[in-house]
């Protein structure tokens, strides 16, 4: 354990393990002994195939699950539960179907008792930032998948969290919309710097966005397999030779799961 944490250390996970209980009595170890540091304003991508416990790790950082062993700290304070200092974007969008875009985005502020005109202003700012100006009064089902996830991102951002956690946010989009959303994510991140932990199974996405990639083992229980620091300049290009070479190198490390 480091005696003196670096001043820019944001999130620190120490030997985190978690076992889920299925059918009431069977224990499935999901992640085991994960230790991990995230620096302030770093864009960290956790990359792994379908079932490797990466989402569970994210939910532990969000405080939605408690680890069986180990602990997680944020700014040196142990995480005991979910809180508005960490914004979470869900894979399945998880928008409130009964609220408009505006209602969804301002929800966090409303829950914290921010007066109406003030939260409208903040929400509008983030709606504009994600490029949904003009759609404030739409209900979620009237939006396409990419637009729904933008609402999800704006909702998380509007709460001004210190850390953004994204759980396979673009998993349900087609290849082109996905690239577009990645570009938008990079743009928003440049605009409003945050510490980001981004979970994905798509290596192109990881290489496009990450400062650092954590590669997970391809099976349960999830462990960290390798770590890559991506020093490429931004904005990046999906089809750039350096990215493709890195991709070849990383994919060589993963197993083929049919």
């Amino acid at each position, binding site marked *: 354990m480091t005696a003196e944490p670096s001043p820019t250390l944001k999130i620190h996970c120490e030997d985190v393990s978690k076992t889920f209980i299925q059918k009431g009595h069977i224990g499935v170890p999901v992640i085991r002994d994960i230790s991990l540091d995230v620096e302030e304003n770093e864009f960290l991508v956790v990359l792994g195939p379908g079932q490797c416990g990466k989402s569970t790790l994210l939910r532990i950082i969000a405080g939605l699950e408690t680890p069986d062993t180990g602990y997680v700290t944020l700014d040196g304070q142990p995480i005991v539960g979910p809180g508005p200092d960490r914004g979470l974007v869900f894979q399945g969008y998880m928008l409130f179907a009964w609220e408009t875009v505006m209602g969804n985005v301002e929800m966090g502020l409303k829950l914290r008792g921010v007066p109406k005109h003030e939260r409208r202003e903040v929400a509008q700012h983030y709606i504009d930032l994600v490029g949904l100006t003009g759609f404030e009064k739409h209900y979620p089902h009237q939006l396409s998948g990419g637009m729904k996830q933008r609402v999800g991102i704006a909702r998380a951002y509007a709460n001004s969290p210190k850390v953004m956690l994204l759980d396979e946010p673009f998993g349900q989009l087609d*290849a*082109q919309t996905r690239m577009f959303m990645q570009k938008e994510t990079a743009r928003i991140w440049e605009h409003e710097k945050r510490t980001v932990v981004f979970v994905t199974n798509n290596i192109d996405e990881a290489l496009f966005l990450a400062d650092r990639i954590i590669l997970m083992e391809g099976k349960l229980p999830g462990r960290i397999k390798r770590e890559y620091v991506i020093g490429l300049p931004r904005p990046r290009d999906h089809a750039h030779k350096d990215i493709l070479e890195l991709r070849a190198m990383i994919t060589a490390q993963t197993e083929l799961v049919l």
Partner: protein
Amino acid sequence: MSSEHVKIRVTNLTKRFGDLTVLDSIAFEVKAGELVAIVGPTGCGKTTFLNTLSKLMPATEGSILIDGEEANPRRHNISYVFQEPTCLPWRTVRENVAYGMEIKGVPHAERMERTDRIMEIVGLSSCAHLYPNQVSASMVQRIAVSRAFAVEPDLLLMDEPYGQLDVKLRYYLEDELVTLWQKLQSTVLFVTHNIEEAVYVAERILVLSNKPTKVKAEIPVDLPRPRDFLEPRFMEIRQQVTELIRWW
């Protein structure tokens, strides 16, 4: 690989919904045994295009000729591999692969023989007696691909069958697809949003425009197989196609 015989000829294919023109006089030809990829920007009327080609939807104007005859699902062998899984959950993997031939009225002995052959190539033999919900998502898509090839189609349409899979798995399945296609000499139209995938599998790429959809460009892919996405020529073609449709 491909002979000079024109298998599919599409002329002036137009589809309108009321005042809205979705397909605007699309015309192209596919030679027998050719693998053509079709790419276009998101929202380019891809679904309408495929549904019209497969005759699920009547075209407003124009014709689709297979061997010089108007295409007809009853007369011609048309296969369509959908983006979402289309396995029948109440049939085993083997019965699913045989389903297309069953409708086509292929005699029992030949049906079984072809089913076994295809499942051998694709590597499905080990799970022939499982049910679709007992196998993984990529397996389910391989069943659909096998079923489509098994009817020895005059025209095989594929709608982004490997959309959400990770890179390694995708390349593996695409190699498998190319093997199947080379062995069975089928004529394949492969529709996708992923440009890299298109360059990897196709002999020729048709680039569609935004709505109203037209064929914007035709790009031959004259690369040897197996292809390597790091090769300069590969990257060059990829770049060329990307620039034609980039909206992101």
